[in-house]
């Protein structure tokens, strides 16, 4: 088939393709706008830094920094451990969360080899996410001295309720665009499939190819205008008019 053929085929099934695209986009759109809960994210930053010894004040000690970075990885594990989770749940009963559920919602990340830890909570309510993440940060800072026997965690920044609450799950517009592209491909694919499956005669080429017979005439579907008897121009009586001269009598 040639490009022209493809275009003709797509134009022929335009209604099918269009309705598939419209249907899929509508369903995805409605699902995204009305039935997908919006998820919010709140982040607190902690810094792991040993209080320098009084005699070395004002000097950044390389080995101390390295130790802290190494510690950060252990701290990530400690934070999601039940030692911290149970304490959070016990200290902040108004969060109404179980330790295991909390551990699942919690994400702890470090940006490369740095002493800073990002503690992130996702929740359907931005307020609750902020409260929870701050609670975790506070409890962690409070518990570390008793677990590690050193006091080196500082809360760098807490999550704030004043920040604008932006949902983090993807934009409905992007979802609808993806749905549009996918359904368009699907529709075109279906149009080609139907064409392949359609084994009826549709044009002169089909007849010549399949039957090896000449096509004497193509009679188009009669429309209402053709069937309407138009008395002003042609009546049965005037039919044998002279313009059809006998050619071989």
């Amino acid at each position, binding site marked *: 088939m040639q490009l022209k053929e493809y275009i*003709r085929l797509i134009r*022929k099934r335009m209604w099918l393709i269009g309705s598939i695209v419209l249907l899929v986009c509508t369903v995805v759109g409605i699902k995204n706008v009305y039935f997908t809960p919006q998820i919010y994210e709140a982040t607190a930053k902690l810094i792991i830094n040993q209080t320098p010894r009084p005699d070395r004040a004002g000097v950044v000690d390389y080995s101390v920094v390295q130790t802290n970075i190494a510690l950060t990885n252990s701290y990530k594990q400690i934070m999601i451990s039940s030692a911290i989770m149970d304490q959070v749940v016990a200290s902040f009963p108004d969060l109404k969360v179980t330790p295991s559920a909390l551990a699942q919602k919690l994400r702890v990340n470090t940006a490369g080899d740095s002493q800073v830890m990002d503690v992130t909570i996702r929740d359907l309510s931005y307020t609750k996410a902020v409260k929870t993440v701050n609670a975790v940060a506070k409890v962690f800072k409070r518990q570390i001295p008793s677990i590690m026997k050193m006091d080196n965690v500082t809360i760098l920044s807490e999550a704030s309720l004043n920040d604008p609450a932006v949902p983090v799950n993807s934009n409905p517009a992007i979802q609808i665009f993806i749905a549009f592209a996918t359904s368009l491909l699907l529709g075109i694919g279906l149009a080609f499939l139907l064409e392949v499956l*359609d*084994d*009826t*005669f*549709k*044009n*002169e080429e*089909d*007849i010549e190819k*399949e*039957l090896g*017979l*000449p*096509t*004497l*005439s*193509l*009679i*188009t*579907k*009669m*429309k209402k*205008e*053709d*069937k*309407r*008897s*138009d008395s002003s*121009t*042609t009546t*049965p*009586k005037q*039919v*044998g*008019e002279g313009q*059809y*001269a*006998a*050619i*071989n*009598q």
Partner: protein
Amino acid sequence: MPRLINNQLVTSLHAQSSVSEEYRMLRTNIQFSSIDEPIEVMMVASAQAGEGRTVTISNLAVTYAQEGKKVLIMDMDLRRSSLHHMFGLRNHTGLTRVLANQQAWQDVVQETGIDHLHAITAGPNPPNPSEMLSSRRMNALLVELKEHYDVILMDTPPLLSFPDGLIISAMCDGVILVVQAGKVKKDVVKKAKANLERVKARILGVVLNNVKRSNTRAERGMEERNLT
């Protein structure tokens, strides 16, 4: 004359329409497909019912009549005759009366209201249509009719349902195969064609019927012509 003519008879009701032009194209192509031995007796055949045999043969008959030829259109579909509906004729007498030796053919020929075009309807349904059509009386009748008419056109039952179509094809100079576009499976039409070839019928060609308006080249040509 206040005759009730079926609105599918466009060649008569709407002679200038593009569909009428397509029927005239059919007539011309039949004439060109046999220069040396003119085709006098023709039938329309189709694999299945409802492909448009009667409409095709009726319109073709009108275009022949408009050309000034003496045309006889016969309803050879003795099972579900319908030609009389096309021309608003009555079917209480007809071919079966002649074949049963009850009437002479001159008594059953009816005027259609179109100049030069006469019709013989099927008549009452017989119990044995295939035997009637293959009778010697039928052959004799045809020989006689050929002397009175330039063109004889026959409407037939569907090929794959009854043997009648094949019997009639043996009497004809040519067979026009009507195929309804986009409806009938290729295999079905191929089978009908094979049946016709087995009885050595001469298939003049195919009329592709009910083609959608937008995608025919002929139609596009027609529109251009109408613009000028």
